[in-house]
Structure formats: C-alpha cells, structure tokens
C-alpha cells in the first residue's frame, strides 16, 4: 500500500513550494489516476516518489508497504518495487538496450534476493515480454531510446516496467506523444501488469488514457493539493468541464 501523508515539496535551492500537503492512499491491486492542469505538481509528485534529487521534501512522508522511502536512494526504491515510467524517456547513446535491461533487471533481482538471470534466461524473458509490446529484439540491440519515435520510447518504458516487475508503478503522462494505435499497445501492456499485488498511479492531463487503463479512483491535483477525489466518472466530468473549477484553464 502506498501512503502519502501531508507531503510538502519544494524545488531544492529555490523557495517555490510545489506540493502543499498531499494526502493519498493507493492500496495494492488498485489503479489510481491523478489528473490536473499543467503546473499543478503532477510530475513533481512522480519524481519525488522515484527519488529525484532536485526536490526537497519539507514536510510529510511517503510510506510504501508501511516503510518510509524518503531516505532511500532511487535504486533502493526500485529494488523495493517502485517504478516510474518517465514522461520523457531518456536516450542513452552507447548503451545497448539489452545491456541496459539486463543490468537493471539483475541489479533489482540481486537486491530482492532473487537469482540473477543468465543470458539465455534473460533473452527468453525479454523476447516474450518485448513481443507483447510489439518491440523487435533487434531494436533492443541499438542504444537505449536513441532515434526512437515517441511511441517506441513509451513502449520501451513499459518493457522496462515488465522486466523489473515492480509493485508500485507510477506512470507519468504515459499517453503524451502517442497516437491512438500506440496508446492501445501501451495501455494493453500496462493492463497486463495489473494484479492484486500491484498498486498503480497513473498521472495524466487528459481523460483519454483512462478509457484504456480504467482507474479505480481519480484524484484531481491542483495548486499542490488533492482538490477532489472520485470514481472513474470523475475523469469524464473533467473532460467536459475542464479544470476551470480548480482555478485553471483547460489546456
């Protein structure tokens, strides 16, 4: 279970407060969506969950399975099951996709006390999981994300997620830059990972992603706080009314 308690966050080295007291609980097995206007702090929340250093938590706590993760390094969090699918996946020239996936997979397996995968075992798993996301293994021989289209990058993120088998998946604007076909493939990949052991937090500006990844709860984030919480129908209401109610113009 993810428990975010009274979370206050500012940008390190600056005074700007971005998150001003977030309270949120995501039980295992549930998918929660966070919607909100631009600049509301959605991506900040995603980064803070993953442990990015550019932010400073000034108050509150984040508990994952009852344990505070705030003092943990990003790689320790990953080993504990936290995974952030980036809004803008990074290109890593010179590192082949397979090398990257294998290094990451075995790093978290080792930390979790699982046996590291041998090359044949790894290849078998990666082929199977990449296939489901329409990713050609040949593409993974190329440097990570270099020269990939927006859709390819997002599929590559979901493949990483599938390989690392996280228990808390945070998806930051996973729909941005995707056409409808790519959106379907990515959503199917995410839905395949839904399980009673996994909690998911889906961050999005638009409702359309939630047609494919249907959430159990929807939270509206604006001005650094959760302004409203409801069921999946809340997303449809927002689609109609925009974020005006929360003092912002719809984009």
């Amino acid at each position: 279970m993810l428990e975010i308690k009274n979370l206050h966050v500012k940008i390190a080295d600056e005074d700007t407060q971005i998150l001003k007291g977030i309270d949120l609980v995501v039980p295992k097995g549930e998918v929660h969506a966070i919607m909100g206007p631009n600049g509301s702090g959605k991506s900040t929340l995603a980064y803070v969950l993953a442990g990015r250093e550019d932010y400073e938590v000034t108050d509150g706590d984040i508990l994952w399975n009852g344990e505070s993760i705030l003092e943990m390094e990003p790689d320790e969090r990953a080993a504990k099951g936290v995974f952030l699918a980036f809004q803008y996946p990074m290109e890593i020239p010179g590192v082949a996709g397979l090398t990257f996936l294998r290094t990451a997979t075995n790093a978290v397996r080792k930390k979790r006390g699982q046996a590291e995968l041998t090359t044949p075992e790894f290849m078998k798993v990666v082929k199977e999981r990449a296939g489901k996301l329409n990713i050609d293994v040949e593409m993974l021989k190329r440097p990570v994300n270099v020269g990939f289209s927006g859709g390819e990058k997002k599929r590559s993120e979901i493949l990483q997620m599938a390989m690392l088998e996280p228990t808390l998946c945070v998806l930051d604007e996973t729909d941005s830059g995707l056409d409808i076909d790519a959106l379907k493939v990515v959503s199917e990949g995410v839905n395949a990972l839904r399980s009673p052991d996994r909690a998911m937090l889906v961050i999005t500006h638009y409702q359309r992603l939630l047609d494919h990844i249907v959430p159990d709860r929807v939270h509206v984030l604006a001005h650094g706080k959760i302004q409203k919480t409801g069921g999946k129908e809340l997303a449809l209401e927002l689609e109609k009314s925009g974020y005006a109610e929360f003092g912002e113009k719809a984009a």
Partner: protein
Amino acid sequence: MNVAVMKTKAETGFTEGFERVVDTLPGGPNVAALRREAIGQFAADGLPHRRVEEWKYTDLRNVMKDALPPAIGDATRITIADVIVALGPLGRMEVPRVVLVNGSYRKELSNTEAAAGVSVVALSTLLAGGADAKVFGVEAECARQSVVALNTAYATDGVVVDVPDGVTLEAPVFIVHVRAGGVAQFAASRNRVRVGKGARATIVEVFAHVPGATPDGQQSAVTAVDLDEGGQLAHIKIVNDAGRITHLSNWDVTLAKSADYRAFHYTAGAGLARNQMRVVYAGANAKADISGAFLARVGEHVDTTLLVDHALPGGVSRELFKGVLQDHARGVFQGKVIVRPDAQKTDGKQMAQALMLSEDAEFDSKPELEIYADDVVCGHGSTSAALDTDLLFYLRARGIPLEAARALLIQSFVGEAIDKVENPSLRDALMEQAQIWLLGHEA
C-alpha cells in the same frame, strides 16, 4: 623558434649523447649522415615549448626534463607469455605480430606467417641489408619537426609493411612495442606502411609494458603511411602503459585518389602522450575517419594534434575524439582542417568531447578551420561536461546502483568512439581494456 634560449638538461643530453652512440645505431654511412643532420636540427630547435603554437598546451620542453639513455640493441629477456600479459585483452587475438622490446625487433617473439602475401620486415633487417636512408623517409614538413628529428637521429628499429596492389589482408597486423626491464630508457622507432592500389589491411600499433618493467620511460614513434589509389587501411594505435612514460607519436599519412583511411587512437596510462597526425589528401575523393578515445587520471596529460589537409576535390574527413578526465588530468585536442582552393566538395566534420569526472580536470580544445574553397561542407564542435545527472537518475530509477550507473555512462561515452573500430574482436578487446581502466578508477 630561433630565439636564443638556454638549452635544457634534456636537450643537452640528447644532443651530446648522440656522438657517443652514433656508431652503434643501425644503418650504413648515408643513414648515419641523415642522423647527424637530424641531431643538428634538433640541437638548433630544441624541444618544442608552449610558445610554439602547435605545442601551446603541451610544454614538452618543460615536461621532458631528462634525456634518458637511448635503448640500442636491447636484449632484455622476455617470453611470449610476457608479451601476451602485456597485451591484456588484446593478447587473446591470434594475429600476425611483430614484437619490439625497448625499441628493438625480436624475431623469436614475432610471428608474421599469418600475414601471407604482405611484406612485413623489421627496419633493422633492412638497414643491416644495406638499405639506404630512404627507408627513413617522411615528408619534409613532418621531418622538420624537432621531435621527428630526434626520432630520426635515434631510431633503432621499426616495421616496414608493404601491402601489394590488390591484396586484402583480413587479419590485423600487430606491431607491439613493449617496455621491459628495470632501466628507464628512451626508445625511438620508425615505421613505414604502404598500401597498394585497391589493397586492404589493418595495422595495430600497441605500446605496453611487460610485468616488472620500470614505470618510467620515453618513447618516440614515427609512422609514415602511404595509401595508393583505392587503398584501404584501418590504422590503430593503442597506448596502454603504466602511467609515467612520455609517449611521442607522429603519423604522417598521404592519401592517393579514392583511398580510404580509418585511424583510431586509444590512449590510457601514459604520463604524457602526444598523438600527432597529419593527413594529406594528395588525390581526389579520398576519405579519412580519424577517431580516438583517451582516458587520463591523476596528473596524466594526453594531447591529440591533427592536421587534415584537403588539397584536392571531393575529400571526406571525419574526426571524433572522446576523453575521460579524472583527478587533475588534462586533455588537449587541436584539430586543424585546411581546405585548399582546389578542394571543392570537401566534406569535413570534427567533434571533440571530454567527460570531466573531477573539478580539477582540464580540457583544452582548439579546432581550426582554414577554408579557401567555396563549395564545401565543414563543421566542428567541442564539448566538455560532467556526467549527466538526469541520465544518472534515469539509470538509478531502474535499480542500477550509483557506481554501476556511473561506470555504465562512462563506458557509453567512450564506447561511442570505440565503436569506430570496425574489427569486432579488436573493438571488444578495446572496450574491455577501457572497462579495466575504469574499474581501476572506481577502486
């Protein structure tokens, strides 16, 4: 350079030491005459210093304090097993090898049978057979440099490779220079490579040391390269020594029409390395890809100085150099590209990048384009930056611990340059070599 200055201890040592050893250096009377002329020139010019533009960032006169005793007819006993150890990951490659120990050719350690159809002969063998001074020849402009003059005066040995017209040699020919024994010496070698019309070869010059060798030494290596029409050469130099040596390298390359030259310099573990190269496009439509990776830590200093001279139309040049600088190491890149009036349709691109792993590291990059033709595409760029923190976060968010993430990013940075090496075994061995270096830095 004709400013009257006090001669340094090293300059005096090299100049005065010459007379004592000239009779023991290989070659007949006309070779001896060439050596005398060269040492005279060296005596006049001295070691290059920072007031000489091409040596602005590498003040050799100041750094090279002593003239170590010249290595002549060295007979330090070593075994093939020692050579294999010295070669590290490269030792696994079963290739034709010519081995020079402290600057002298060793037949018993060499194996050139696999280089069938190609002539691979030691310079000392040619000189003993009465070859004249022409085997020493480099273009006058190259010979004029005082470092090359010093090499001409003292060169004891080297390798002369001739790939006949139309011959393709798949196996890379290794010219292995190893330092051995407990005496710090100055070793000078001179190589010549000719690749005939439409011929193709790979030549790898390696500089390393066998276990137990003194960490100190000075080496000067000059290689003259001629590619005939349509000739292709992959020319690689690997310096992987112990840290305190002074390594002075000079390649002088001439490309005939449609020749295709691929050069790569890997430099790690040299106290001071100067990799100087001149590539002259003497025929139209020739191509050169000149790349390299350099790794330096503590106070090491690696200098890459290139002169690419497009004299005729349709030439293509690509340069990519990547360096990893740790502690207070210093990297220097000077890349001069001349496009002469006749060299229309020249396509030249240059990039030099340094990864700064410490606040105290320094990278001096000086691209120079001199373009006299109007229909050309030329570009250059240079960067020096620390590890990308966004990328580090990305890797760590995927569970990769900090040190491993750093290592992966450094490898990827260097890997982009090493990828320029086309021979897969060689490329893999170099990548492994770089990883070993990086682990040494992590420790």
